[in-house]
């Protein structure tokens, strides 16, 4: 008889073993799931992405106003108010306004005055951001929500 003989079963896996190790595995799994939830914050430490930009009358016509402390421009055209993100769609640099529109200093992406792509490596035009009217009458730009180019808020 060899010790390698599988027929000689020294400790048959009984039901208790199975239940015990099963419960062990289950609780380790539960703990792991709980721990994996931890790194994703439930609330972000930055100030809110929604920013009030003043009443409609304060938005300049046919020129851009940089919103203080934020990387976005607001303006008013004939169709209404709109907001354009100043964050380049290529790799997240901040574009600078130039007479022809916007230039990105990092990799040379160029955009026209309405944020459409005209050159450089950027995959698409600058994001247009959602503008809404707050219940108190002020306009609110939501940096977290983009809208299709050419979406205006009628006033």
């Amino acid at each position: 008889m060899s010790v390698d003989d599988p027929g000689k079963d020294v400790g048959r896996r009984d039901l208790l073993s199975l239940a015990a190790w099963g419960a062990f595995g289950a609780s380790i799994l539960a703990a792991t799931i709980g721990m994996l939830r931890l790194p994703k914050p439930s609330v972000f430490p930055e100030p809110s992405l929604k920013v009030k930009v003043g009443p409609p009358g304060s938005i300049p016509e046919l020129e851009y106003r940089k919103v203080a402390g934020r990387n976005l421009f607001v303006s008013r055209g004939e169709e209404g108010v709109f907001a354009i993100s100043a964050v380049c769609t290529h790799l997240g640099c901040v574009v600078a306004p130039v007479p022809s529109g916007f230039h990105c200093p990092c990799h040379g992406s160029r955009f026209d005055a309405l944020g459409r792509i005209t050159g450089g490596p950027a995959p698409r035009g600058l994001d247009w951001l959602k503008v809404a009217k707050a219940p108190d009458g002020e306009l609110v730009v939501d940096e977290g929500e983009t809208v299709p180019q050419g979406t205006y808020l009628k006033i």
Partner: protein
Amino acid sequence: MGSWSEYVANVKSIPRAAWESLVRHGPPVTDRSRAEAVFQNLFLHIHSTRVHRWSLRWSYTMGLGLICAASFVVLTVTGVLLMFYYKPSMALAYQSIKDIHYVVPTGRFIRNIHRWGAHLMVIAVILHMARVFFTASYKKPREMNWVFGIVLLILTLALSFSGYLLPWDQLAYWAVTIGANIAQSPREITDAIGITRYLDIGGFQKTLLLGSRSVGEDALIRFYVLHVVFLPLLMAVFMGLHFWRIRKDGGLSRPADADRRLGPEEKDVTPVFTQAPKKSYGLMAVVRGTSPNVGRGPENTLPSWPHLVTAEAAVFMFTLAVTVAISFFLDAPLKEMANPLVPENPAKAPWYFLGLQEIVSFSAFAGGVLLPVVTLLGLVLIPYLDREPEGVGDWFGAASRGREVALRSAIFGLAAVIAVEAFAIRFGWLRSWYPGIPQIVITFFNPGTVLTFLYMAYSLWVIRWENSTRLGAIAIFTCFLAGFIVLTLVGTWFRGPNWEFFWSPSRWPVH
């Protein structure tokens, strides 16, 4: 085409092949494959392949060492998780703990586990030490492992204390302020001799600990680094040494006649290695103590897989169960944000230092430096002072008078500490009678040193009277344990604002 079908077959058998390349032994149902399950696994091969039945006895180890190790694992995992959100700076630390408490997913629960797990570990470490002592497991050849154990005790306390500051709340700030000034207390001596200007050990220690004059930004960073890197690494190294020595010293201690007393073998035990093993393990011949005997008859060992591994998993889960149960019901304490202008009253150290704080209330040097050093030194020296080989592996040494001496010592230890404490609380101490008395007198003559003297004298008397160093060791260890417990209880429950005596915290004056 043949190679194509081979390819398809290979793809199909990837899981099986991958498993076989990971686990090289067969199902762990035979002696041989069970042994392989242990020694072919990086994490399991710290065990010997077979474990003596005595080591698996519940009533012998109570799983205390494993509880310590399990707590350390739990603390490491939860600690790393907390580091994702904790910000070690004066301005942000407290806010980040509040965030962990309120909005971090599972944050509150994990912090609770970390806090209560730390307390549990301190308790387990102290109990484990008591177990090892009362079963005389420190004796040859395990002297050095006992010393490593003392180092682990110190590291555990240091880890717990360094973590105490991190929440940056009132509790933390004032406990650490006290701790830092205890580190400075050698000045009591150097001031008395008048050499502080030339040799300021106390000032050096405090500066080393805080990196500044008072508890502030630098102290916080130092405690953080100590808590999350330096001390855990040391701890891991010494734990490795501790475990390694267990195997090198021949496994857990057991009485010489363990085989006889265990009686007939269990059904699960079958003759091992009835023929010569396929490989020879030369190392086994080098290992001291009773190791699996190659090519010999039956003996009282069981395969580590599954017996020891199951036991370890059970103790680990037991530890986790207790910790999560406490953590579910009780939130970890968090007081107001640290405010250097508003001292906590009473400002208390963590509970395991409250016995010392009781003595610190007479002399910072005696309670904070002198007695701890004397105690630790005594603990380290025990295996070298008591070398009687009898009684190893049995609680109190079953055949001797150990149990009786332990009981008498406990009574003496309790009586002495209660008497001294009651006297000091009722009548005060030297300073209350002679306000002008130099501090140096109190440093060396206070309830703490008086107790130490009484305990030492009692133990020496036991050695002479019973003519046994082992009984003397039992006497002094039991006395110190009794003293530690009573002083800790007094410091925890019976001391209120201004460190005055109260029968219960509900009688504290409201501030």
